């Protein structure tokens, strides 16, 4: 199958997924209360007028502020309301956080992601360390599920990013550093306690802090037994990627960048290729989510390949429907790849118009 064929097939899959998901979320009995209420104000009928992905442009942009407050299951189709449900929060340093109610989505997202991880570096049956935010975050449970799905046990640390944001906003840099050291202390205890840990999730900042701590103790990420890492966040820049590979990890430890959030799930990084010169390109987990790079002045218009625009996100799962949400990031539109035959985005960074007010790199 040529790449063009794959691209066409992927597009057909997204069109099919779009129709299926819209039919569910707007189903009069089984649909999501939020969307059924919204549909009353539309000048089109989602059940009859949405027949392909492009028809999602008929919906107004999704306002993520609607995700604040209860009832949290209003976005969840009623079909799932009798299932055991999770609620995951995002942000929330002050005020009511945005939240999402989930039944199985986080498991499915990470099971799909698992297929992209090389067994050589993430050996099935080996244990993991989750070095990221805990508490009401989805990531904690998702990574644990990923590890379990691959036959391992996941060791976790306590990490409250909201507290770190508060410290940074108050200028209490030293306290934030102490908190980071406290997190690394927990990681060091786990890693030196004979737990056969080979896989790890970490944020770039924490991975860096852990690697430097190990260097100070005349060890290394490799020596401590880690063979595979996935990490995410806008701080995962090409420069950091290179520094990490060349100076923190060495050639025998695999690291892959990921890009994700509570709404979308997990976008995968294009496999490392020296020819890319550390450029990081992400591909959304289609057809369950789609990422577009759109014109800053017209969010309905996708920019040309290699051009810069704002990241627009669509979520098309049985548990959440988001017909176009403007992410807080910008980047360049990338061509489809053999492994991911749909558009990608590279160079993600905070959207320039809101970057100044964002506190990044909190953990």
């Amino acid at each position: 199958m040529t790449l063009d064929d794959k691209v066409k097939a992927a597009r057909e899959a997204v069109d099919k997924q779009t129709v299926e998901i819209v039919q569910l979320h707007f189903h009069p009995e089984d649909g999501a209360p939020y969307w059924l209420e919204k549909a009353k104000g539309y000048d089109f009928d989602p059940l009859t007028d949405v027949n392909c992905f492009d028809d999602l442009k008929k919906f107004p942009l999704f306002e993520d502020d609607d995700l604040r407050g209860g009832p949290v299951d209003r976005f969840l189709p009623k079909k799932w309301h009798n299932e055991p449900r999770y609620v995951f929060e995002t942000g929330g340093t002050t005020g009511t956080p945005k939240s999402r109610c989930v039944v199985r989505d986080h498991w499915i997202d990470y099971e799909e992601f698992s297929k992209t991880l090389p067994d050589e570096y993430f050996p099935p049956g080996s244990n993991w360390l989750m070095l990221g935010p805990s508490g009401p975050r989805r990531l904690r449970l998702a990574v644990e599920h990923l590890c379990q799905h691959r036959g391992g046990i996941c060791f976790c640390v306590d990490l409250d990013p909201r507290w770190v944001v508060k410290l940074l906003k108050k200028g209490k840099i030293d306290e934030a550093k102490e908190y980071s050291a406290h997190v690394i202390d927990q990681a060091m205890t786990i890693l030196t306690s004979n737990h056969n840990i080979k896989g790890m999730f970490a944020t770039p900042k924490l991975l860096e802090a852990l690697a430097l701590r190990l260097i100070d103790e005349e060890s290394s990420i490799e020596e401590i037994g880690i063979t595979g890492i996935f990490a995410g966040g806008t701080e995962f820049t090409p420069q950091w990627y290179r520094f990490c590979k060349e100076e923190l990890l060495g050639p025998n430890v695999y690291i892959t960048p990921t890009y994700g959030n509570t709404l979308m799930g997990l976008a995968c990084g294009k496999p490392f290729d020296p020819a890319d010169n550390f450029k990081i390109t992400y591909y959304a987990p289609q057809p369950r989510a789609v990422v577009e790079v759109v014109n800053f002045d017209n969010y309905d218009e996708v920019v040309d390949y290699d051009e810069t625009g704002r990241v627009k996100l669509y979520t098309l799962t049985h548990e959440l429907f988001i017909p176009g949400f403007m992410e807080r990031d910008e980047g360049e539109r990338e061509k489809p790849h053999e492994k991911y035959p749909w558009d990608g985005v590279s160079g993600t960074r905070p959207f320039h118009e809101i970057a100044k007010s964002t506190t990044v790199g909190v953990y």
Partner: protein
Amino acid sequence: MLEIPVIRWGQPYESMEQSPVVHFETGEELAKVHQANGGIIKMDMRKAKKARDILRQHSIEDLIGMCEKAAAYYVNDELPMGNGTQTPEEFCRIQSASTGLPEHMCKFNMGKSAYVMKNMGAVLDALTRGLPLDVFSKGYGEEGRGIKISYQATTNACGWVLPSNSPGVHTLWLPVIPLQIGLVLKPGSSEPWTPYRMFEAMVKAGIPREAFCLYPGPHECGSAIMETCERSTIFGGQATVDQHAGNPKVAAHGPGYSKIVIGEDKIEDWEQYIDLMVDSLYVNSGRSCISASGIWVPKYGAEIADAIAQKLGPIGPKPMTDPESGLAAFTTKGVAEAMNNMIEEGCKSSAVTDVTAKYRDGERLIEEERCDFLRPTVLHVTDPDDEMANTEFMFPFGSVVECPQDKFLKKCGYTLVCTAITDDEDFQRDLIDATNIDRLNLGEVRTYQIHWMQPHEGNIIDFLFRNRAFQTEPPPPTEV
């Protein structure tokens, strides 16, 4: 295109991302500067001891000699600059183009730095109070009266988070290398020129390149330097100073709030000091912390403000190449406007009058396509408690404040440079005792006329070395 690498203990390092340095008037890209990341700095600082070890292979006297040679190279030679080279003339031109400082001021600052390097021996002799320099190499020695002394280095490398808009500050870090301590610089985003040129001049003079790190990069680089260097200096606003207050590892240099005060005994002669006041406000476009921002007088405030305003008010922007050009440009959009708004707001007070307004042909704020200017501004402030009495801006700005002499020290707040014109011995005694004044000039010294043999905002020797007890034998018996 000129490309400037990161320097990691002397070795060039090319990053994945580069930041452009642009011409403030035309937007033309002047250079691409490679960008460090925080992790690189944290990694490199684990090897800082090597820098000190390498420098200690040379005596301090030898390093002083190399500084003297470097001074000549710095002002005269074509030196490497990234992937190209740069003559002194090109240096001034490009520094002016990226910082908005007129070329003749760039040249002046260049000479200032070279002077300090050329006179490094005398500078260190003054700052160490004449101690034998091997005390700092060995960590101990004899003071000359048979008394053992020890000066222990507090750090293997000293970090400097440098500003973009004030090339004059580079004189402050020059003594670090001859004191055999590794030098870690984070150049300002639009002023990589001085650190890189100085580095090349010093290397050409024989100083080991392994003693230097230059980390252009985002804010995280500054944080990483301050986190990992046991001693570092940062330049910034009052918020930066407040943030690091009480941290012995960090010296934060902020606004100077430098002032001239005229005593009651001299105030009748105020007209004699107008040139001194004008120069102190105006030289270097008022951009230095050592530029005066306040003139405090017991009376004749309106007359003094008017006399200064007559001289400064008509001054406007000129081409950067004009030797008479006295105003630096604001190269970041919105900064000048914000300052102008603050001044306008301040002028709403009944205690404040903008005396320069009547001598200006036009507005204070001049907005151009890619940069802005603020024309000199002199306020007459009748209430020393008014907010505008003790304010500093990065352009020729000053408040002539009426304040009784006996209230001056209570009202003047922190003052980096205070030039006091008085022969009143009691007032002089109070000024000498005042701990809110850093550099004190008793007499007709312009605030920017600083003597390089004097410490600036603390003695760098005390910052980089700890005078501690050291014995090689028991003390004499204590029985009498």
